[in-house]
């Protein structure tokens, strides 16, 4: 903490390791941040219904995966947490048979009527997920309004990524990657659908940035995001020019991607630092200066620069020297000189300053812990992970090391029930635990609309802050009702593209109502439930017969009761904790 100064010591210390000791004066943003962390503190371990600490394999499969598929808990128990974490941190795409089969065989309907002016014919086909092997030159023309193309074709790349995301979450062996890709999508949130057609037409490229960098280096990651088509258009960096800087990206870069609102000084007089040190937080002046430092960072989309230069329309990143403001500036109390050899040096220097900043480490690590541990993660684990982050600022596997220290911390293993699943996790974990078969008969829309109705449609959060990651936001009537409905309606066969065969999963030696109930409790939850709940489940299945007898009724009746038994386990509070 060499940047500590007498001018800002209170602010600095309280921001850094003392979140339990909030400063006396807090901004609105501070209050908001604190609300997020205390939102769940009311549920102490003494609240009725609070879960006991489950076995480590349950914790691991619930928080660094989208819940266990049958066999996962045994596997992790046998190999041990450390080996499982290390395996997950180094995914091998070729070793992912279930997901690859699904992705290769998936078809998703696309249909539209003919263009009234005859520019394209009507179409109705079952199309594979072709964008997996396509690139910018395929996507870019789809987003251009000058091209007369059916809307369904323009948005197809986004729809395919939604489909892929769902299939990977349910079937991929590399669950931690999926969890962290979701995390980074929220951290670098872009509304994929409602801002600009160039965003959804090229969405696979943005998704690939998450997949390439989730366990890499934050500085590299940040520059990839800054230069991406999606972020460029979402937060207007594409039109940030010396003749009229657009501060949108510069603000969110600091407030949401790096320093966090907790390090925003509304009062510039409170942000005075000794010469040569880096400011602990940012002011309005930093927003303005960072915007200027990033002028000229743009995307080639046919803009006219001057009478002798019009950019091609390619979608490629382009630094436009003519739009760059080269003035010397002060950013985060550091002097940023005019460019000399590298014309992009000012923007890069901004990213360097942020990526190496201790409060950036703390802000991002805290968010990672909030995802991987709980809404109010222990300060001790944040400290350890921040130290690893800062020691590895230049390491290509910086984020891998940070994730590792979090997952192998005692705090990870000692914490459970500080958070509930979000709708996407909940529905995916239900599909995993029940070995649901997501068919490829042309749907694709069904399963992600399931999650959308619950309030978490993929890549549709409108604001740059991303889907909230505290249970206080999600524990609401709509999210619960729609999520429960996904379970009850799906198990009743309401969705043709989601089918189950639960009865066939029961081993031959599991025959009585008692045994069947215990089998499914263990399979779905990996731990026991209260005796009241177990009795309720057994009573339902035995339907008046002995609990130690085979469930009575016709095959169809018993099958229905078994499906509904599984539904009851999945709507339990126990299935929501993480």
């Amino acid at each position, binding site marked *: 903490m060499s940047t500590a100064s007498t001018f800002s010591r209170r602010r600095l210390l309280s921001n850094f390791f003392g979140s339990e000791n909030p400063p006396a004066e807090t901004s*609105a943003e501070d209050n*908001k941040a604190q609300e997020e962390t205390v939102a*769940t503190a*009311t*549920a102490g371990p003494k*609240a*009725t*219904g*609070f879960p006991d600490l489950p076995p480590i394999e349950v914790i691991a499969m619930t928080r660094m995966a989208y819940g266990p598929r049958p066999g996962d808990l045994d596997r992790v128990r046998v190999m041990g947490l450390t080996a499982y974490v290390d395996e997950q941190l180094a995914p091998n795409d070729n070793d992912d048979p279930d997901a690859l089969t699904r992705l290769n065989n998936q078809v998703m309907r696309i249909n539209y009527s003919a263009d009234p002016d005859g520019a394209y014919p009507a179409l109705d086909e079952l199309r594979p997920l072709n964008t997996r092997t396509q690139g910018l030159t395929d996507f870019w023309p789809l987003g251009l309004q000058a091209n007369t193309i059916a809307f369904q074709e323009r948005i197809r790349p986004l729809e395919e990524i939604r489909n892929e995301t769902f299939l990977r979450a349910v079937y991929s062996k590399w669950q931690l990657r999926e969890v962290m890709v979701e995390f980074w999508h929220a951290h670098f949130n872009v*509304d994929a659908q*409602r*801002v600009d057609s160039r965003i959804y037409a090229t969405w696979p490229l943005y998704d690939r940035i998450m997949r390439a960098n989730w366990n890499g280096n934050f500085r590299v990651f940040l520059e990839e995001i800054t230069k991406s088509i999606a972020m460029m258009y979402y937060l207007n960096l594409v039109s940030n020019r010396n003749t009229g800087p657009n501060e949108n990206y510069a603000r969110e870069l600091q407030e949401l991607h790096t320093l966090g609102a907790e390090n925003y000084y509304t009062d510039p007089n409170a942000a005075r630092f000794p010469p040569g040190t880096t400011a602990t937080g940012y002011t309005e002046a930093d927003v303005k200066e960072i915007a200027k430092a990033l002028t000229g960072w743009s995307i080639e989309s046919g803009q006219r620069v001057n009478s002798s230069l019009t950019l091609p329309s390619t979608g490629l990143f382009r630094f436009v020297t003519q739009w760059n403001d080269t003035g010397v500036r002060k950013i985060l109390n550091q002097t940023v000189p005019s460019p000399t050899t590298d014309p992009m040096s000012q923007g890069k220097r901004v990213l360097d300053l942020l990526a190496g900043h201790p409060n950036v480490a703390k802000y991002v690590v805290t968010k990672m812990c909030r995802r991987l541990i709980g809404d109010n993660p222990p300060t001790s684990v944040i400290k350890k992970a921040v130290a690893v982050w800062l020691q590895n600022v230049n390491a290509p596997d910086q984020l891998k090391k940070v994730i590792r220290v979090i997952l192998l911390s005692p705090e990870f293993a000692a914490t459970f*029930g500080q958070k*509930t699943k979000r709708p996407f996790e909940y529905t995916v974990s239900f599909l995993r635990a029940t070995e649901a078969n997501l068919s490829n008969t042309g749907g694709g829309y069904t399963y992600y609309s399931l999650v*959308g*109705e619950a*309030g978490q*449609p993929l890549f*549709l959060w*409108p*604001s*740059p*802050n991303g889907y*909230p990651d505290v*249970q*206080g*936001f*999600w*524990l*609401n*009537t*709509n999210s*619960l*009702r729609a999520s*429960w*409905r996904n*379970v*009850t*309606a*799906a*198990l*009743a066969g*309401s969705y043709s593209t989601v089918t189950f065969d639960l009865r066939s999963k029961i081993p031959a030696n599991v025959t009585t109502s008692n045994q069947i109930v215990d089998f499914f409790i263990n399979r779905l939850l990996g731990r026991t439930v209260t005796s*009241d*709940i177990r009795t*309720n489940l057994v009573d*339902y299945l035995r339907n008046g017969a002995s609990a130690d007898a085979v469930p009575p009724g016709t095959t169809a009746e018993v099958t229905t009761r078994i499906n*509904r038994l599984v*539904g*009851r386990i999945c*709507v*339990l*509070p126990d299935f*929501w*904790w993480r």
Partner: protein
Amino acid sequence: MTLSRREFVIGSSLTAAYFAGMGTQISSVAFGQTAPQRDILVVLFLRGAMDGLNFCSPVNDPNYIAARPNLRMRSDGTTPALPLANPIGNGVDFRLHPSGQPLLDLYTSTNLAIVHASGLTVPNRSHFDAQALMEGGNPNARQQTGWLTRYLTTIGGQSGVVPSMTASSNLPGALTGSGSSIAIPSLSGFSLPGDSTIFTPMQAYYTGTTPLHSAGTTALNALQTVNAALNRPPTGGTIPTYAPEGGAVYAQAESQSGTLGSALITIARIIKMEVGLQVATLDVGNWDTHNNQGTTTGTFANNVDSLARNLMAFHNDMVRYRQKVTLVVMSEFGRRFTENTSGGTDHGRANVMLVLGGNVNGGRMYGNWPGLAANVLDGGDLAVTTDYRQVLAEIIMRRGLNPQLNTVFPQLGAYQPLGVVKGTDQPVV
């Protein structure tokens, strides 16, 4: 799925048990015995930027006539626009779009007020940004919560069974951060279908005191209460056909999900259930008329027709609730003053707001008409002379009985009510 007699009986008995067990909570919420008599706020957002200049048009303004040679409303011809009494401006002949006759009737009966030249005080012609800023409640900076969320928070109004809802599929920006808001795009889907036996056990599963258990109980109560009012169990079934009151005829049927008529019917039904509703929102799109906007017929005219007939229907349907409901219509910005070459209009600045209800000082226009001369335009478009938030602030102050304007609308500045609605002002907090 039809409702069997057996399921109906189960539903009824569940309802009885529910009211027996939870009577205190429900009666206070349902009938508002303890809550102040604040209005239910209904916020209708016209997504895509409605052309206020062709909705409520200064038909005799020579600048208007010049800027829209093809695409303007007229005082003559076969389908003249409808003259408005008590206009603003000096000698401006303001007329309502000819497809808006039901709105003129509401205006004449003083239930409808029109505010012109309102909008964001900071120019922004991006749908996305402008909607986010407008619904965030601060034109100067993005907010993490919506203005309606903060309205609800400051009235402590998040405790009813259905304190706030949207009749769209997703919560609007104005309700961002409101965990208690419920999206009910259709009432028929507001259930837990698939297992008619699951509901009672679920109530037992969620009897704990953690936030998860509490939220689960709240959700189950909402399912039970709303579905009881629909005479079906919370596990689904057909819902009774809705019979609007007051001779109301909505322009679309409830079953036409996604339409304005269907959404307003959903809201009307929930208002009549008396389940603690404080805020309802709904969206209607298709206002982004860059091409082939039309004049007295076509896209825009059809939109106005649907809007006018549905608002009239809602007003009639609310015959027993008129004094308790205030509805406001808004849009992110108006459209470009000068028509484009595609028979449409591009993105502009100021726009019209409508305020409808039994406590509206209707029958007149409000605002400060800036005129359309070149030197008073804002970037070529109708200038904003009324901060849209002043209209909303007055509504939440006088009809919402909530003086906490500085929280709901950060950086509002001085509260300057236009007198659009009846009620009294308190000191601003």
